[in-house]
């Protein structure tokens, strides 16, 4: 099963490499990973999506908690949560495709953020499946380049991950 694990950690040099190293060292899988400082610049928030049995995910959270730089860990998928991923996708846009891409982007509530006479770059935000669906709808033959941020997420309601 897919899990979204959120990690609050010290914004220190080496902290990220310890987290990433832990995953490779213990043979845990990383589907996506995103990290940036929080409103408190001494803390970073890292979100990792992984696939594994309950036993493996329990080990992942326990091993993450053991890292000295890690302040708190939560498995967002254990409860109600919201998740988003941002994608920028550069597409060949000539002839009829120019209108087709624009229409599809509108349907997916995407924005065209860069235009040339032969390309469009579309920005799209949503759950990962929505981004997958956009790619599938347009077909891979028009895609020049794709970049995705990986998943970020928060628990719904009052629940927070903080000091």
């Amino acid at each position, binding site marked *: 099963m897919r899990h979204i694990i959120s990690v609050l950690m010290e914004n220190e040099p080496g902290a990220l*490499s*310890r987290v990433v190293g832990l995953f490779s060292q213990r043979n845990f899988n990383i589907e996506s990973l995103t990290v940036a400082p929080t409103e408190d610049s001494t803390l970073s928030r890292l979100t990792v999506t992984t696939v594994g049995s309950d036993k493996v995910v*329990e080990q992942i959270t*326990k091993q993450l908690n053991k890292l*000295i730089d890690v302040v708190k860990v939560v498995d967002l998928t254990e409860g109600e949560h919201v998740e988003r991923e941002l994608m920028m996708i550069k597409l060949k846009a000539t002839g009829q495709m120019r209108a087709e891409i624009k229409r599809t982007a509108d349907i997916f509530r995407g924005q065209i953020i860069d235009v040339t006479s032969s390309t469009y770059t579309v920005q799209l935000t949503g759950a990962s499946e929505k981004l997958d669906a956009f790619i599938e709808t347009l077909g891979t033959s028009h895609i020049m380049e794709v970049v995705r941020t990986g998943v970020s997420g928060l628990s719904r309601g009052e629940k927070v991950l903080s000091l």
Partner: protein
Amino acid sequence: MELLSGAEMVVRALRDEGVKYIYGYPGGALLHVYDAIFQQEDVQHILVRHEQAATHMADAYARATGKAGVALVTSGPGATNAVTGIATAYMDSIPMVVLTGQVMSHLIGEDAFQETDMIGVSRPVVKHSFSVQDPEEIPAIIKKAFHIAESGRPGPVVVDIPKDMTTPTERFPYEYPKSVKLRSYNPVSRGHTGQIKKAMDMILDAKRPVIYTGGGIIMGDASAELTELAQLLNVPVTNTLMGLGGYPGTDRQFIGMLGMHGSYESNMAMHHTDLIVAIGARFDDRVTNGLDKFCPTAKIIHVDIDPASISKTVKADVPIVGPAKNVLQEMLALVKASKKEIDKEALEIWWQQIEEWRARHGGRFRTDDSELMKPQQVIEMLSKVTNGDAYVCSDVGQHQMFAAQYYKFNKPNRWINSGGLGTMGFGLPAAMGVKMNFPEEEVVCVTGEGSIQMNIQELSTISQYDIPLKVICLNNQSLGMVRQWQDMNYESRHSHSYMKSLPDFMKLVEAYGHVGIKVDKYEDLEDAMRRAFAMKDRMVFMDIAVDPYEHVYPMQVPRGSMRDMWLSKTERT
């Protein structure tokens, strides 16, 4: 406030931490630090011949005392040579602080002379690491390093110090912090009372309980509490390789080590138990054998300081996260206050069964199938000559298993071996580290002719510092454990397990100024050993010829259950 250079701060912080000895080897990146060491007398530096030995000396000090040992190595090759020692300590949860020199900050990343990314290289084998970015941080970083190394589940901590952090002409105010607080690191100080109560109820209800304990009892200083609880309840106790000495080895309730080379009775008891009380042990693969067949009828209480050790391989029914000592104290209080008693009748039947198992194998071995003496006989003699009271520092291989099986450890912290990583070459420097800190005690390195050659250069360090330890070398002229597996699984094709050109160990140790004693016959063994131990002020190396065909038994059948064992070359359970 006193002004000190970074180099002086390193040495002063060690002094203020109460460090007496540091083990190390100088080099370019550490010259300022070594100059500071030269100009004081509080912290004594021991010069080894290879950095690996420095880490093992520090490690063994920690194993014998529970306090973090300190090693000091230079950048590049000095640091990488220390990695095996750091990994050894990491696998066995041993507190250690390793200070590594580093090239100047502005050269980092430029592939400078003797540059290695030590933080990166050591990352998978440290509890934590620090890189000094500002000399003023040195006292706080060293304080944190000791705190992290010694608290919670102990482990090695690396402090990487670029050379320009130690410049003698740049001075800063020095104050060693009295305490340390880390918002992201708060190890538990006590177990959950409700869980402990639940566990105690289960223990009092059990019909065939076994207490299984590991290194957590030794490093957690909980041997007295364990012994009291086990004796109050009359429950059998088995120890892991790391846990030997946690419960008195000559006591009736001790049923031996468990696992791959565990005693017949302990593995049988584990297989048939209805309740495992695991304390400070981690159900590793050398203990559990085939996980799918592990202890089919057992409920499991698992006490460990490290939550990640609980339910990692075997699921616990009652997990208790906490220090062994505190949890055992609470358990003792509950038993003493409880109106309920353990089921004595059921226990009586359980003990009868265990005694039957004990009688079946009982650690027997043949002496009639070889002209040469048996390695087991040597260990039994060692136990006798030293009254079971020596610090026994082992290398890795058959001799390690024989020492674990046949030396009866009645006290904790006396059995010092590389259990998790299985580092050949550990024994000699370990014995050096212990003997330097316990000069009045008997300290023995039990080794083989293979392992001893992995850090043989330390014979020189032993001369320099007059460390009168004793070496018992079980010389079977082959890498015994490799050979045993080749005998059992590869139709005795002895691929590279035979050592063709062994040195004359007598001449070798004499060249370093030590005493060598060679023994070929069992009749001579006791006299020779007593002679060796009578030489209080000399390092004596006993080269003892033992049967190369001997195997370590019992040995569990791979991927079987706990009770599936070879009991000798011809008998299987």
